[in-house]
């Protein structure tokens, strides 16, 4: 399959352009910082709260809060990485004409695009997994705490990255690199704000606000996936805290996860179609 030639080429490009190494090196710094910070805070908190009633509960609250905060950063990093790595992969090759020497070879246009998508989604998936698993492991080693459900949330973070990646790949088939970047980040911003409107709406029992949130989640289901990931990981005590970046007054349903998967397939299908029709 020529598709794998393109996939390997894309991964090699990420290596050669040092993108992979910088991302991994800074990922290590991030995990180390998290581990150091969590270790210090956890130790302080342990001496402070040992005597108080319900100290055990507070332990758990702090731990979960810190872990969720770490995963929230990874969620953000996954989105950034998804856009920044892939935003110019199609439009850039078209404007620099390197695409011409690929598209005149005996392979189909969709193989070029799908080959790139596979490469980026695998790199993004592996990167997100490594970072998230590292955080879960760090927390487990330092505090002994492990969330009831951590595999599901990590899967949702990966899915979120793929959603944004697919938007950026689709945009690249008909937009310039810069316009595509603006599109991807603005959509993310809209979904983000929509998520907050939904959370506050739910707290204030405003159906209209919740519906706005759901609508923006349909436009881009990234924030909804994060909310669900966050919800799944938290024990009931944190779920009941008032609105914060990790709170989930209105929980996206499993249907939203299914929708996100469908969303990826549909957008990718459109991208393949647009790319196979356009002049290069």
């Amino acid at each position, binding site marked *: 399959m020529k598709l794998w030639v393109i996939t390997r080429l894309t991964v090699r490009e990420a290596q050669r352009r040092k993108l992979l190494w910088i991302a991994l090196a800074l990922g290590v710094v991030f995990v180390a910082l998290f581990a150091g910070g969590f270790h210090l805070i956890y130790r302080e908190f342990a001496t402070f709260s040992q005597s108080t009633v319900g100290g055990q509960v507070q332990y758990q609250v702090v731990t979960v809060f810190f872990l969720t905060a770490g995963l929230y950063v990874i969620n953000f990093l996954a989105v950034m990485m998804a856009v920044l790595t892939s935003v110019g992969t199609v439009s850039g090759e078209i404007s620099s004409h390197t695409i011409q020497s690929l598209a005149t070879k005996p392979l189909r246009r969709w193989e070029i695009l799908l080959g790139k998508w596979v490469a980026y989604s695998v790199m993004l998936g592996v990167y997100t997994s490594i970072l998230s698993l590292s955080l879960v492991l760090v927390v487990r080693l330092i505090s002994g705490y492990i969330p009831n459900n951590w595999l599901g949330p990590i899967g949702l973070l990966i899915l979120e990255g793929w959603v944004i990646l697919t938007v950026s790949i689709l945009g690249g088939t008909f937009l310039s690199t810069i316009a595509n970047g603006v599109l991807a980040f603005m959509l993310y911003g809209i979904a983000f704000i929509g998520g907050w409107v939904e959370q506050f709406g739910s707290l204030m029992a405003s159906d209209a606000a919740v519906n706005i949130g759901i609508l923006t989640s349909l436009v881009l289901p990234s924030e909804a996936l994060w909310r669900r990931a966050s919800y799944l990981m938290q024990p009931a005590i944190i779920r009941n805290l008032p609105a914060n970046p990790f709170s989930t007054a209105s929980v996206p349903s499993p249907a939203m996860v299914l929708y996100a998967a469908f969303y990826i397939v549909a957008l990718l299908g459109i991208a393949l179609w647009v790319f196979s029709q356009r*002049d290069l």
Partner: protein
Amino acid sequence: MSDSPTIETHRLRKEYGDKVAVADLTLTVQRGEVFGFLGPNGAGKTTAVKMLLGLAVPTSGSAQILGRPVGDTQTRSRIGFLPEHFRFHEWLQAAEFMDLHGQLFGLTLQQRRERIPALLELVKLTEAADRRLSAFSKGMLQRIGLAQALLPEPEVVFLDEPTSGLDPLGRRLVRDVIRKLRSSGTTVFLNSHLLSEVEITCDRVAFIKDGTIVRTATLDRLVEGLTEVILWVGQVTPEFLDGLRRWSNELQVDGRRITLTVQDEASLPGLAQWVVEQGVGLYALTPQQLSLEELFVQVVGGEQ
């Protein structure tokens, strides 16, 4: 299938919005021909090549390459292409670049191992095999692009301005490669505005202007095309000049010396006879060998 022409287009047209890039392109390139596609910048040469290679979809008309409709995926393993903008993935080393394109052409590992060193040698880049393309000069990039186009031992090679970035030695190298391709029976479609190159290498040329082929000519018989003639006569009368305009509407009168262009060489005896019959005294009638450049200016340069 082998008797079908290499390239056959019928009324090919391409519009980008309101702009017509190629208006009406009908041409046939036979097997083994070295075909020059000439025209000023913006005449539609590159758009025509893009349509032939399946990079751009024609607005109307049809085209076949090697007996198959353009854009057919499998046929592309028999087509080599050096793009005009020879921009490649510059973070690759030269040998990696060749290997990548060999894989894309569907060559086996064995074939790649045989052909890549031979082609690097052909374009004199053997020593640069381990260097990254980002460190290559424009000429080196063009040469590696040419080598890449030859990987599948193609039946037809499209070269879009293949010598634009090259020094005289590089040009000679490309010329030699084209000669080798010709002798091995490969069809070459050469897009160029470097007329001296075309003159040396091509069997036949087509001139394109405003997206239409205005003329095709076989290069060894260029004189059969528009022929410029210099006349020396004893006296120039208005009646004589009027009569002469029936032979050519481009007259340049300079005393007793008149320069005109006739349709073809075959009309020269008739012209001589007519001048003699006018009784103006014919001192000389000298047909000028037209160089490709002059032909180009005549055919294409008209009202520019």
